[in-house]
């Protein structure tokens, strides 16, 4: 049980990481090219965030603090 919780916590940490690195931080605009495979990344991000909600629900009884 404990191992499962830790594994899921790591998954959530990766989701938190992707949310930050894809959606937060300094933004460049204007004549600068913002270049990523937008569709794939956004799709992947949304899909992962949806699954993360389920994972979080499973964690209700688990350990709350996540070590990165």
């Amino acid at each position, binding site marked *: 049980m404990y191992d499962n919780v830790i594994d899921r916590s790591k998954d959530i940490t990766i989701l938190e*990481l992707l949310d930050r*690195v894809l959606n937060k*931080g300094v933004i460049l*605009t204007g004549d600068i090219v*913002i270049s990523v495979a937008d569709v794939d990344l956004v799709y992947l991000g949304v899909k992962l965030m949806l699954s993360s909600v389920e994972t*979080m*629900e499973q964690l209700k*009884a688990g350990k709350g603090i996540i070590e990165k």
Partner: protein
Amino acid sequence: MEKLIYSLVSAKNNLEALNALLAEMKGISGFDLFVVATDEVAAVVSDFDRSGTATDRTMAIEYAGLIEIMAQHFTLLPVRFGSVMESTDLILKMLERNYHEIQQNLQKVDNKCEFGLKILCDPEKIMADMKSKTEAIIKSDIAPSAEGKNSVYREWVNKKLTEHRLEEMMITFVDSVIAALSVSLTRLNTIYKFKKMVTATTIIDAVFLLDKEKKDALIQSVEVIEKQFPGLNFLLTGPWPPYNFVEIVLK
């Protein structure tokens, strides 16, 4: 070749140490990391071959990992993944154009780190608890009407009142959790942002910015508050580079 930008760093007295750190690291696709600097502000960049590179989740994670290593040694502003400029000259001009704004943001996050906190509940359980309390209140609130006990109108009013009371109680409950957190956060001199009722399950989504040396105190405070609300699950992550506290759009 185009340049991928990873972070903006304070270059004041830091350039030598920054270059030494970057010499030990490799950027995305194995390209060398290097510094483009103007006065006291620098951008950490690498070459980037868009045509031969498939950007994907793994690359985004690798990119975030590189920023994290840099953040362990230097105050920085993380740049959103996928920010590419055509040349170092353009990066230099961008740094010059936005110099004061970058400096202000660097000062704001100097020697600080970010934590994220999601507070989750079992919505069915919490609503059931509240509903039992709400029905008791509504029964005491509504006096018997002349229209009779079983009128459709009365049923409808009761239903609406219950919904309204439930919503009020939920907001009051969430506010009480935020109030409890705010006391500790203020004591730790933390900058914080709360989002309430993000989903039925995630009742609070918060981010904190605080001094690096206070991170253990923050973790302890959150653990104490979690014990005050046994029906909730607290998910605290961090320390992160200050992604959520960078308020800058570079032109």
